[in-house]
Every structure is written in C-alpha cells, then in structure tokens.
C-alpha cells in the first residue's frame, strides 16, 4: 500500500492517460463510457489523498524516474495546485454520469469511444499542467489538453463546430508558442526548467538581465492569457463553447480555463514576483484594466445573446475577469478572492451548462425563444439553473457572493474603493442576462417546443442537483473553498516580501 501511496502524483496522470488509450481501443461507446466512469471516479480519491498530505505535512515533491530536481522532472504539489487538482478531478467525477445520455443523443455511436478517449486525454493534460513543477513539461501537457480539446469541440454536430475548433486551434497554438518563447528566455537566462530552481536563479540575476526577464514575463503572460481567454484575447471562446457537444462545454468551461489561470498565477507569483522582488507585479495595471474591461464588455454582450450557450460563454469571459481582478489586486484578500472564484465559478458554470445540456436533451434547442415556460415542464432542472444563476450574480448565501466579498475586501485594503462600485455595477449587468432566462423560463406561457418536455432521467439530474446544492453549500460553509484559497494566497504572497 505504501509503495502505491508514494507514487500518487504519477498515478494522477498515468491513469487517465492509459485510460484514454484503452477507451480508444475499446471502440464501443458503452464500454468506453464504463471505463471513463471508473477513471473519473478514481481521480478525486487520488487528489484528495494528495491534498490531505499537503495540508498535514507540507508540499510534496515527486521525482519522476528518481532523477532529482533540477535535472529530472519534478511533480510538485502544494496548497495552490492541490486545490486545482481537487477541483478538476471532482468536477470530472461529478459530471461524468451526465455524459452517457447526453453524448448518446448528440454524437453518433461510431464516434462515442473517440469522444471518451479524448476526454480522458484532456483530463490527463489538465491534471499534468497543474501537477508538474517543470516549465517545459507544463507546455507538453498544455498541448495534450489543447489538442484533445480541439477534437472534443469538433465532435459537435453543427458544422460550425468544425470552424470553432479550427479557430481555437490557431489561437491556442499561438498562445502555446508564445509560452514556449517565454520559457525559452528563462531557460537562456538560468539554464534551468524547474520552476523552483528558475525562481531561485532569477533572484540572483544581474540587473542588466532584467530586460530579458521582463520579455519572458510578457511572452508567458500573453501566451497563457490566450489560453485562459482574457479579454481581448478571447475571440475563440464563445464559438467553441456554443458549438461543442453540451457535455464537453460543461467540462471545458469548468476546468480548462481554470487550469490556464492556475499556470499564470504560478508563473506570476512563484517565479516572477520572486525574481523581480517587487511588492507588486509589474503588469498589475494591465491585468487590472483588462479584467475590468472583461467584466463590463463581456457582460453587456451576454445580455444581447439569443443562444443561451453563447450567452453563458460571454458570462464566463466576465467571470474570468473577476478572477484576474483578484490576481491584479495581489494582496491577501484579493488574491484569495480570485483563487476561491476559480473554484466557485467552476461549480456554478458547470451547473448552468449542465442545465442547458438537459434542456437540449429534451427539446433539441437552447435558443431563448424556445425555452418559454419550460420552468413548469422541467421544474428541477430550472430550479438548479436558477440557484446557480443567482450564484453567478453574487447573491448572498451563494458561493458567488463569497468570491465577490473577498475581492471587494482586497480592493478596499488597497484603497481602491471605486473598484467596489465597479464590482457591484458589473454584477447588476449579470442580473440582466440571468434574469432574462429566468423570466422566460418561469413567467412566460409554455411555448410549443417546451410543451412536451419533462425533467431528464436521474443520471443527468443528479449531477446537476449536486452542483446546485454545492453552490449554496459553499456560500454558507467556506472552510473548504475560501479556507484553502486563503492559505494558498498567503503561501503565494510569501514570495512577494
């Protein structure tokens, strides 16, 4: 047993990677699904054990192939990525029962096994980016997850899914290449690719090397920002989310951008803040202004969408703005707010997209005109949507309120109280777009398409209700979300002083 426990960090990646290969070999959709279900349910057990170990006895350093760092690749788990690992694997485990019927409905039998195979590859890639302590290894995992994501999107049944996947491929590859250029600069400066080692060596860098460090910072920030869809580098995201299969959208919206945000946080706080030794990041102003722009512009565009999946995609852009705002504020409360919003937004957005997936399964459309009165036909689905929607707005008693509370505290601590008004104002815009859906679903007379709909089967309903309940639960008991995020923020900011 102990020999297995010692290799948990490697198993976290190896199991989904091998699972992805096997799922493709199984060929039959139902078999591939069974395998995917088992793998998805093992993942949170492993990340739970890892997170527990980190919280009781400090960061874990795992040497792949027993080569000691900085020569070998090191998997390093601390509070920050322990939290993200837990998030990604739990979301995957909770939403996977939904996949069977939804995928059966949207994707032909011949392609289902490929879909599950690509999902497991994507999961392995995302977990790999999160767990690795090696900058180049992170690039490889980033591309494993991205390449499988392009395929997941392209499997959507609308032909526009192909174009969305192609555009994402172009933007994503440019982003990844920028990231490699940035890592290249750091490698030229330090001769090392291990993140901890890079930070230590950059700290001892000559002043005349500062320009090269800044260039590396710029390339890495722009590259990862493309991947995480920071406004205005977001053009790939709405199409990709709107035309991907419903279930793929749920998974991607909840995890893919979050992992990219994690990687950026890792570079900004664990490497560049240490190397440049300032009490605030050199790019804080840029990050702040772009996130405020995202909060407003993306929210306003969301109000005008008629396709609900596209509307939630724009809302995701605005929510990414909140997370980046916390990163830009970069003090204890602000950063904790940004990090806790990574978790809270993942839960709420997964619930919202699941509800849309259930609606699509019943009526074959997610146009706002077609869902008139659907609340009376699918009461549980729409109740879950409403709870998660209120969370998105930031109603007290939901998870969304906790994140905004921390963000507001962080802004006040810096003395930026106009920022608090901006936070509230942008939340009011989200009232508009969430309210539009609630109004159509609950208060309009039952439309033609919605008339025959009813709540989906239990395997689809249960994940949705669990996530909606989590939205409320994490709004009341914040020990597991804000508690860990707070500790992770303190850990990251330790590098800033």
């Amino acid at each position, binding site marked *: 047993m102990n020999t297995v426990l010692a290799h948990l960090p490697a198993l976290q990646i190896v199991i989904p990677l091998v699972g992805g290969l096997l799922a493709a070999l199984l060929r039959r959709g139902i078999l591939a699904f069974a395998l995917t279900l088992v793998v998805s349910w093992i993942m949170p057990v492993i990340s739970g054990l890892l997170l527990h170990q980190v919280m009781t006895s400090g960061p874990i350093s795992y040497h792949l192939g027993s080569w000691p760092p900085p020569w070998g690749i090191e998997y390093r788990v601390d509070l920050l990525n322990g939290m993200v690992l837990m998030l990604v694997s739990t979301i995957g485990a909770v939403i996977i029962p939904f996949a069977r019927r939804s995928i059966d409905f949207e994707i032909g039998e011949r392609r289902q096994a490929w879909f599950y195979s690509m999902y497991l590859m994507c999961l392995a890639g995302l977990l790999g980016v999160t767990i690795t302590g090696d900058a*180049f290894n992170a*690039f*490889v995992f980033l*591309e494993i997850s991205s*390449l499988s994501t*392009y*395929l997941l999107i*392209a499997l959507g049944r609308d*032909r*526009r899914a*192909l*174009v969305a*996947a*192609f555009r994402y*491929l*172009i933007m994503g*590859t*440019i982003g*990844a*290449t920028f990231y*490699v*250029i940035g890592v*290249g600069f750091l*490698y*030229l400066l330090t*001769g090392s*690719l291990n993140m901890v080692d890079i930070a230590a060596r950059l700290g001892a860098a000559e002043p005349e090397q500062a320009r090269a460090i800044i260039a590396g910072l710029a390339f890495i920030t722009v590259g990862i920002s493309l991947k995480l869809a920071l406004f205005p580098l977001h053009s790939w995201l709405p199409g990709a989310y709107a035309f991907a299969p419903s279930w793929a959208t749920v998974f991607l919206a909840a995890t893919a951008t979050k992992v990219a945000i994690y990687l950026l946080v890792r570079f900004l706080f664990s490497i560049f803040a240490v190397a440049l030794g300032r009490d605030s990041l050199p790019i804080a102003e840029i990050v702040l202004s772009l996130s405020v722009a995202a909060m407003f512009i993306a929210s306003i565009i969301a109000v005008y969408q008629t396709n609900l999946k596209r509307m939630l995609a724009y809302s995701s852009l605005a929510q990414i703005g909140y997370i980046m705002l916390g990163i830009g504020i970069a003090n204890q409360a602000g950063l904790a707010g940004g990090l806790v919003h990574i978790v809270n937004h993942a839960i709420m957005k997964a619930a919202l997209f699941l509800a849309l997936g259930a609606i699509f399964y019943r009526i074959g459309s997610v146009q706002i005109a077609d869902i008139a009165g659907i609340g009376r036909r699918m009461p549980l689905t729409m109740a879950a949507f409403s709870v998660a929607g209120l969370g998105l707005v930031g109603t007290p008693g939901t998870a969304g309120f906790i994140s905004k509370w921390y963000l507001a505290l962080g802004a006040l601590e810096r003395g930026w109280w106009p920022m608090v008004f901006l936070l509230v104002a942008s939340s009011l815009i989200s009232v508009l777009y969430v309210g539009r859906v609630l109004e159509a679903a609950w208060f309009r007379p039952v439309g033609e398409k919605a008339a025959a709909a009813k709540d989906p089967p239990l395997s689809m309903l249960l994940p949705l209700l669990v996530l909606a309940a989590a939205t409320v639960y994490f709004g009341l008991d914040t020990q597991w979300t804000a508690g860990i995020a707070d500790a992770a923020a303190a850990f990251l900011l330790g590098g800033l002083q």
Partner: protein
Amino acid sequence: MEALLALVDHYNFVITIFLMVAGLYVVVARSNMVKKLIGLSIFQTSVYLLYLEPGKIIGGTAPIVDPKFTLYSNPLPHVLILTAIVVGVGTLALGLALVVRIHEAYGTTDDDDIADRNRDE
C-alpha cells in the same frame, strides 16, 4: 553603424525573429485556412531555432566524459525541441484534418467565406 554590426553579429537571432514575425503575419493576414496553418508552422519552427542556437558551441562535442574532450555543447535544447517538433507535427496534422472536414461541410477553406455563410444560418 554599431547597431548594424550588432545585428550582423547576431544574424542567427535576426533570422529567428524574421521567421517568427513572418509566420505570425501569414496567420493573421491570410484567410485561406491551409495558408494559415503554413504560417503557424513557420512561427513554431522559429521557436525551435530560438532554443537550438544558444545550445550549440562551435567546436563543442556531445557531453561524453572523456579526457580527450573539454568543450561540450548542451544537449538538452535538442531533446526539448524534439518534443516541441512532435507537438508541432501533431497540431499541423490535426489542423489539416479539420480543414478537410471543413471543406467537406462548406465546400471552401476560406475563413471569410465561411464567416459569411455562418452569418446567414
């Protein structure tokens, strides 16, 4: 004059940056999807050079412990770039496969034409 000499001195970086910018320009400026992918490939290739050039020391050998050799080239960039090439080939193959499917679905590979048709839907 000095700046010019510095450029000539670092001609390898000049080539790298030229390829980088040229590739990115093709991606942005062309609406033909195959040409976009070609541009993307050129862009990625420039990064291979960025890694490889500084790793080579003229007259240096592979790092073999032997009293006859004292000057070594760094082998690590080559290994890294081997991985990056694999990623690049994978991306290009997937991109071209998508273009084939797009051509089947739309009858064109021009990004602007496709945007027009999508607007009509």
